[in-house]
């Protein structure tokens, strides 16, 4: 029996193929059950997202199982097998474990560190669990993959820094202010990215939000969407004095926030920092505003630069995550091998222990006058005998599992001692 994973992902397959092959839950259930009932796989789970379709399985002949699984998937979606087949990437055993860990930890994602993939793998696991196609191997593989993903997320900063312009604005705000709870925001204009940045700030507790626009109706609409307050455009300067974060995204050709305007409100602010996020092109905030003390002004190019720096940072953190995954793969493989032989070792012990206890009881019943020391000696003798007997087969089982032949030896031991399988 071998563990393998086979599938297509954004690394090898173009989006046309991926979207054609993505299959929803009900059909996946059916396919997984069919494959198991047909005896092609022992255990199976299918991860199907817009970026990957992968079959995780334990099978006697991985090649056959892989072909049949993808034949099912292709047939259901009416895709030609010949298109998918050359795109399939297969990993077996140790590499399959590593792949599972890397996928769950978002190291194999298109945007490394994105958090959605873990949820998607968890869904796939739950689906497989609900139709009872998981066995001990895949069960422990996935639970361990979730644990590794959690470690990667907490011990490295792979998912920590923003990789989109609106989130970069939020992240910068967090470097200026101690928490966003109760920070007031002024949104000028109704650009999409500006609205998105404002929404992210609100989600992190920023309040209240003022919205202004040259068109009063637009200001009202946007304010409603953000549960904010609309402000007439010519009162912008007044609001500027009281807010902490200003987001601008209007189509104005000239800067609408000038240096003198900001200088005017700074005195009243008593040294509180003021953060401008200018997403408009051409810029809405006069570039010289950023030179003022306590004022931080970022335009869209600055934000992009931050995003690029963050991507490089993620790549560095991903390297640390890879070493962590390497170690975990090693640990898991050792455990996987034991997983194969441990049930047999346990039942072998139980079997002999049962015989021993029974025989000791019988013997002692025939010796009613025996001294407590004699009873103890008999007990110890019987224990010593079974330990000596067990030593060789247990060692052999452990060795064989490490050598990859655990299966045949467990069957042998089970037959010899009449253990009746797992």
């Amino acid at each position, binding site marked *: 029996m071998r563990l393998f994973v086979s599938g297509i992902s954004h690394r090898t397959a173009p989006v046309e193929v991926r979207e054609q092959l993505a299959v929803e839950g009900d059909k996946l259930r059916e396919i997984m059950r069919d494959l198991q009932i047909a005896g092609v796989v022992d255990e199976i789970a299918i991860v199907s997202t817009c970026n990957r379709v992968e079959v995780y399985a334990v099978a006697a002949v991985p090649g056959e199982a892989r072909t049949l699984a993808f034949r099912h998937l292709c047939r259901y979606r009416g895709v030609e097998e010949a298109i998918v087949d050359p795109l399939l990437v297969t990993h077996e055993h140790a590499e399959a474990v590593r792949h599972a860990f890397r996928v769950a930890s978002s190291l194999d994602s298109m945007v490394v560190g994105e958090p959605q993939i873990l949820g998607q793998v968890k869904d796939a696991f739950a689906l497989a669990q609900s139709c009872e196609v998981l066995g001990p191997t895949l069960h422990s593989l996935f639970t361990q993959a979730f644990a590794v993903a959690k470690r990667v997320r907490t011990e490295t900063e792979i998912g920590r820094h923003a990789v989109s312009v609106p989130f970069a604005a939020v992240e910068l705000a967090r*470097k200026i*202010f101690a928490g966003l709870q109760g920070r007031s925001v002024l949104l000028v204009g109704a650009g999409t990215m500006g609205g998105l940045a404002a929404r992210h700030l609100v989600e992190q507790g920023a309040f209240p939000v003022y919205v202004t626009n040259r068109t009063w109706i637009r200001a009202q609409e946007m304010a409603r969407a953000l549960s904010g307050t609309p402000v007439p455009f010519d009162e912008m300067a007044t609001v500027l004095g009281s807010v902490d974060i200003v987001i601008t995204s209007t189509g104005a050709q000239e800067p609408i926030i000038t240096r003198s305007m900001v200088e005017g409100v700074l005195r009243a602010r008593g040294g509180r920092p003021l953060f401008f996020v200018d997403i408009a092109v051409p810029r809405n905030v006069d570039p010289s505003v950023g030179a003022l003390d*306590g004022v931080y002004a970022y335009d869209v190019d600055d934000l992009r630069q931050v995003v690029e720096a963050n991507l490089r940072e993620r790549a560095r953190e991903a390297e640390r995550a890879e070493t962590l995954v390497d170690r975990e793969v090693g640990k898991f493989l050792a455990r996987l091998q034991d997983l194969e032989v441990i049930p047999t070792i346990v039942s072998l012990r139980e079997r002999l222990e049962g015989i021993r206890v029974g025989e000791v009881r019988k013997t002692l019943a025939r010796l009613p006058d025996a001294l407590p020391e004699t009873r103890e000696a008999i007990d110890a003798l019987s224990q010593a005998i079974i330990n000596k007997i067990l030593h060789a087969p247990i060692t052999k089982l452990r060795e064989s599992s490490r050598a990859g032949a655990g299966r045949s030896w467990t069957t042998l031991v089970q037959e010899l001692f009449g253990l009746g399988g797992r």
Partner: protein
Amino acid sequence: MTSQILFDLAVAGYVCATGLALAHLLHRHGLVYRLASLATLGGWICHTVSLVHVVVETGRPPLGSLPEAVSTIVWVVVLLEMWVERHHGVRVLGGFVMPIALVLSLKIVARPLTLPSIGPALGSAWIWVHISLVTVGIAAFVLNFAGALMYLIQERQLKSKRPGAMSYRLPDLETLDRLTYQALAIGFPFLTIGLILGALSAGAAWGSVFTLDPLVALSPMAWAVYAATLGGRAAAGWGGRRAAHCAVLGFAVLVLTLGAGLFLPGRHGS
């Protein structure tokens, strides 16, 4: 002798802590951080025992000479550093404070700790209060300086719009500003009352407050810088960068004062 060995051990701990804290600043490894904390704590415990030993041996506070007082300042600095780091979650603080603590303790590591002390003036109990208060005040100003330094680095990175490696590690500006301000607000009353008591004791013991002594001459300057910062903060809402610059200036004067006290002859002994 024992106290000297213990103090050397403490300094060895601080050397490790400094190295590890700087490594943590560069690599942000959880294990390195834990080791740095451990080394700091280990060094501090040795330091504590060494100070207790001085007290037991001499029957007076470990503040009998300027090097002793500096040693005690370092002890308070490390204590404050550990507390602030845990309490405010500023994990990188060690990387800024420990080097300063180390430099301060290296100044005295080569000398025996218990030197013949300042003389008749020490007979008065007030003089001990003077030294203790000033000691705590100076320790708070070390934190004030470290906070200001971190603030200036973070501020520069944010202004330059190229958040570099340091920006990822340092806390936000407001937290740093608050840390700097709190350290100032704690340090200032200690320094003020300490200096007043010092002046009164000096008047009583030496006949005049204004004697030829480097500490007496320079400490009012340091005090004036801190007083101006605190006044500016309270009255004119100075904050952020200006307050941070003041903290750096104040600390520079303070170091100059202490350095002069340690290396020039004067009434405070050296």
